[in-house]
């Protein structure tokens, strides 16, 4: 139903209304819970690694606000991208294209949570962290979603910064500032994002082509994307080891990150070699799944070390 038709229907006596059909679960789905879980984890690691201490309740408030802010960004992203979500098989069942939540409801929900999370973080924790969260939401919604996503194949390279900020916000929640260490945490996620998403984009190329989203495989072709995945993986490996190289992680982390980095490059090389058919697709899925394990393990190691060494 178009917006004009909807307004016409609402103006009639005893009119039916196509809104108000979203369940609590549908609104939770708007928050992109899987993305949110990664945000919570990386922000928590940033918070735990930061020098100094924060009251556990304030720490929990900071993580909650960062999580809600990330969820609000997801809701606003789904509001803006409802037209392309409807086309792609991966996103077709999201609440807006599925007709469970109207775009207006999603917009109101996203804006309310954005303001609420930023103000709560600012009031209860510190305003630097609050401003940083506001900037992250702005970056994800306006820079990535509205501008880059539909205009350049570098969309996820630059836009990936939004997903990499949470550990810095977690750090800032404790210290009220940022530092080289927190920037390294940012850099790990920033360099990890392109090969992670391009591996998925190679498999879902037809979806992005149909939706006219200029992902790298759509614009530059699959061969060029394979070159890019390999190049970014080679760059990611030393960045992953940077916490050890810069002296804020142990040799155990250094050895583990080196091994994981080599495995990442090996899987990227596998994608580079296998260009056709099911083998190529399987190689992409392998790197996509391993990339999640890679990021989780690096941050879990840093968290473990901070708990053991900080105790």
């Amino acid at each position: 139903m178009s917006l004009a038709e909807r307004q016409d229907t609402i103006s009639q006596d005893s009119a039916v209304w196509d809104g108000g059909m979203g369940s609590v679960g549908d609104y939770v789905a708007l928050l992109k819970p899987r993305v949110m879980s990664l945000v919570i984890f990386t922000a928590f690691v940033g918070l735990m690694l930061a020098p100094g201490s924060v009251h556990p309740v304030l720490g929990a408030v900071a993580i909650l606000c960062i999580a809600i802010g990330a969820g609000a960004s997801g809701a606003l992203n789904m509001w803006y991208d409802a037209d392309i979500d409807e086309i792609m098989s991966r996103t077709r069942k999201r609440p807006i294209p599925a007709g469970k939540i109207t775009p207006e409801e999603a917009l109101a929900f996203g804006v309310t949570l954005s303001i609420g999370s930023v103000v709560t973080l600012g009031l209860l924790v510190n305003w630097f962290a609050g401003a940083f969260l506001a900037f992250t939401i702005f970056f994800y919604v306006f820079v990535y979603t509205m501008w880059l996503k539909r205009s350049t194949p570098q969309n996820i390279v630059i836009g990936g910064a939004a997903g990499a900020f949470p550990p810095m916000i977690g750090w800032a929640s404790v210290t009220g500032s940022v530092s080289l260490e927190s920037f390294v945490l940012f850099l790990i996620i920033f360099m990890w994002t392109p090969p992670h998403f391009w591996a998925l984009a190679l498999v879902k190329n037809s979806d992005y082509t149909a939706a006219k989203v200029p992902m790298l495989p759509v614009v530059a072709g699959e061969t060029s994307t394979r070159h890019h995945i390999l190049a970014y993986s080679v760059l990611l490996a030393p960045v992953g080891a940077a916490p050890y190289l810069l002296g804020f992680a142990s040799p155990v982390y250094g050895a583990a990150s080196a091994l994981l980095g080599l495995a990442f490059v090996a899987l990227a090389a596998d994608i580079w070699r296998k260009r056709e058919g099911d083998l190529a697709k399987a190689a992409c899925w392998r790197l996509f799944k391993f990339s999640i394990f890679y990021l989780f393990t690096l941050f879990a190691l840093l968290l473990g070390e901070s708990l053991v060494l900080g105790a």
Partner: protein
Amino acid sequence: MAEEDKGIALTDEQKKKRRSRSIAIGIALAALVVLFYVVTIIKLGPGIMDRAL
């Protein structure tokens, strides 16, 4: 005489979903009240008892 404007008539399904959303909003607001109360106590610490009479 003009017919009475009945406005939007919600279906049973919409009413059921609205009720569940209202409960969730109520819980979230109550949690926020508790949160701000607890953080106020934490931030003020012992100073919460220090007030002019």
